[in-house]
């Protein structure tokens, strides 16, 4: 069964009188356990698509189904619950919570969203920090670590909740090349180890090499599935 099914997704942004069509009819399905990249020029609609996949926004028309749930039909609360249980997010700006330590950032979704018991949380956080190689920095705060390290923490946070799907919008855009490759490498390794589906958006041609499947978006439409 497909993990993600998009059926004729359209998205118009309406600002005042003007309506901007950002997605003009996208259909595709994604199997579980894949490492997928969307590429395309700036303004092509990658972020828009990822937001719809993650249930952060709703399509103007069409259906988004993730893990058997039609998320485009969920209300705010149900959608938040669904995201907390099924989807991990990695952001371009890392988006760690500045008042929480590295450890607490990774623990946050387990505590505030999934409400796991303390022992279980400790186990998972320690495990994830070890996997991303940040165990020795666990007590530091986001302001005290580098960009690459922040993104590794963000990967750990996204995966600690054991989501079925991880969405990453331009995860390497704020990193230098060497670090970018490392982070993508880490994501790939995690995908293999945890059998999680990764979807990331980028316009950085050099980074997409790691992807198993590449979709190209141009002007709100899928132009071709490369690879």
């Amino acid at each position: 069964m497909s993990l993600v099914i998009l059926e004729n997704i359209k998205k118009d942004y309406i600002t005042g009188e003007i309506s901007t069509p950002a997605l003009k009819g996208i259909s595709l399905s994604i199997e579980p356990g894949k490492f997928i990249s969307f590429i395309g020029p700036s303004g092509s609609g990658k972020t828009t698509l990822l937001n719809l996949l993650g249930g952060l926004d709703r399509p103007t028309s069409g259906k988004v189904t993730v893990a058997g749930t039609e998320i485009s039909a969920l209300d705010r609360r149900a959608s938040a619950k669904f995201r907390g249980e099924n989807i991990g997010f990695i952001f371009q700006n890392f988006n760690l919570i500045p008042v929480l330590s590295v450890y607490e950032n990774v623990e946050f979704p387990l505590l505030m969203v999934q409400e796991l018991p303390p022992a279980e949380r400790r186990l998972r956080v320690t495990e994830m920090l070890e996997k991303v190689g940040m165990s020795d920095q666990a007590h530091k705060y986001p302001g005290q670590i580098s960009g690459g390290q922040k993104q590794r923490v963000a990967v750990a946070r996204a995966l600690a909740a054991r989501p079925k799907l991880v969405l990453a919008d331009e995860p390497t855009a704020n990193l230098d090349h060497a670090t970018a490759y490392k982070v993508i490498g880490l994501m790939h390794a995690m995908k293999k180890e945890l059998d999680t589906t990764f979807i990331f958006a980028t316009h950085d041609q050099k980074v997409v090499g790691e992807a198993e499947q590449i979709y190209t978006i141009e002007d709100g439409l899928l132009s071709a599935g490369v690879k």
Partner: protein
Amino acid sequence: MNNIIKIAWRNLLRYTRRTLLTSSLIALGVALVIVFGGVGNSFRGGVIEIITNSNLGHLQVHKKGYIGSMDNLPLDLSIGEKGLEGLRKVLDSSPEVLSYSERIRFGAMISNFASTTNMRLTAVHPEKESATCPDLPGRIKEGESDPAAFVKPGAIVLPQNIASGLGFKLGDEVVLVANNKDGSVNGLSFRLSGISENIMGPQGKDGYIHLEDARTLLRIEGEEVTEVAVKLKDFDRLTGATSSIKKELADLAGAGQKPGAEAASGAQPGRGAKAGLEVHTWEELSPFASIAKMVALLIIVVRLVLVFIVLVSVLNVMMMSVYERVGEIGTMASIGTPPNKILALFLTEGLSLGFFSGVIGSAAGAGILLLLKALEIPFTFGSMDLVLSPSVPVGEIALALLVVIVISALASLQPALKASRMEPVDALRHV
């Protein structure tokens, strides 16, 4: 919940300067309320104690209509023998009454043979008067001030202003001339046994003579008085005690009236046959009551200012907090944090700010009050010497804290709701 508090505190500490500034503003407000409340209540309590203990008593009983024409000190509106008998029964049996003093108050001319002036006099039994107004003997600055016998038959106590006005010294002979209630004039001479300091209030400049002398001077036969001052065991029970005494006096009047009803058609209102008494508390008798009310009102105004300070400063800080952290809110929301937890986070932040500041302010306020108490600052109000000894008002502190907490919660509610209702996409774009 612990984690929400932890995150809220860290966020408060993140903007240290702003938090400290807001916090000190709120703390200052709370301290102000507590100090003002403490000092105001201490002043109020002090003055009330002086006037009730010096001459008013806690409450007074008169013949109906007396207070209305009190300025003339009418002798014809007196409590007659039967009325007094009933009144004594009520007061003696009331568990609330500590003591009471029967008085005849009247106006008289006082003369040193060379010149003459008008004055007011209160005639009392000294031991009963002292039990009811225990501060009175202490206010007799010169001469006899023994509580049990500060005014013996044949003696008179004059207030300072009259004594010095007429050039009287202790032991001098003083002549009083008074009209009795039928209009005839009588005179009697007294020996000046004491000079009392003047105090504020309607009876603050009265002279004192013995009750028996007044009866002689005014040619009153039998037991008849114009006023009964009452001291309660517990001043705080004033309202309850007054209404129960009123009720019992009314029952007494009712009982007295019924059997007399047939005879009453004969239309001769027997003297004191109907109790017809009125009861007034010190508040209704003293002009200070309105000052006391003003002080109470001012305390309320200061509290309102506190409410305003807390409301504006917490609202301001929380609105800024939400605005500055839109990106963070977006992150939390997108990874699935439920809206109610985001709400709780910001509410807790505002509440912690208010509570923390409130506790600091309370401690500071209580500290200042304790200091004032230790310093025993004396001051004079009217002609009364007071020492400020504010006690730390536990109720006031609890109230101030409660107000701060409730208002902080209210002030944080709007920003917190705004945070919890943000759409994750919009919030994330804000980064």
